[in-house]
């Protein structure tokens, strides 16, 4: 079993690119979740409004 010592994040050339790739991945997920959250908020607001109208 080869365990690396600490995951030295080499701030040399290679590290930048790897970081960029992982950041892209995370960014996609987070943006997606944010959009979903915004939609949820809107649905919730409309539902509340509907419930209020109904009484």
């Amino acid at each position, binding site marked *: 079993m080869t365990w690396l010592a600490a995951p030295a994040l080499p701030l040399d050339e*290679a590290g930048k690119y790897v970081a960029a790739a992982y950041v892209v*991945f995370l960014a996609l997920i987070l943006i997606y979740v944010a959009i979903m959250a915004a939609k949820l908020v809107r649905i919730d607001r409309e539902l509340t409004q509907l419930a209020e109208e109904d009484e």
Partner: protein
Amino acid sequence: MFSKGLAPLAIATVVTLTAAFALVFFYAPLDADQGFVQKIFYIHVPMAIVALGGFVAGGIFGIRHLRSGDAAWDLRSYVAIHLSIILGLGVLVTGAIWAKASWGHYWVWDEPVLVSFLVVFLLYCVYFPLRFAIEDPERQARYSSVFAITAGAFVPLNFTAVRLAEALTHPRVLSQTGGDLPGEMRLTFLVALAGMILLFVTLWKLELTAKHAAMQLKKLRRRRAERREAVPA
């Protein structure tokens, strides 16, 4: 309706992805040829595999939709394709980063998987203008399913053709066939792949639930508006 099992799925996704990232940076050994840059592989390839799987799933859901006429299948198909496009964008961007880091260019035609991916991505991008250019909702769903099936059949053909073409002209430069991976790398890769699959399914269910809720809401509003019109004040 679509949200069954969403919470445990989400938890499983977080756990698996965290484990995957830990493995990538703490466990997997450095690649002899490419060094640290090779670690992009653990993000890029699982994304590609899952995106392609998503496209094919979209086609299968399309078949279910055409056979049953149940609009729920069309929704599943739409969301699968939608998610796969987003993942596909990620594949192309991470692929470009990898190419730049390894070869100095953001794009290389020598890598058949990347090229095939570009073609598939371009094709599936047309799904949305096609879909929204058809006004009748039932017809829209039906034609979208037809497209999803056709495009799904296209994906394996495309990969075969591009690979055959590139194999003759250029040697595969970024060949990372699963069979050649040493044990630690393979484990890391599999965990990353599992995480990506879980992520896809979780986000898929999430989007399905959100869309379904929005549709129900619209239906409610419409019905109330109709009822108000039907009853003279």
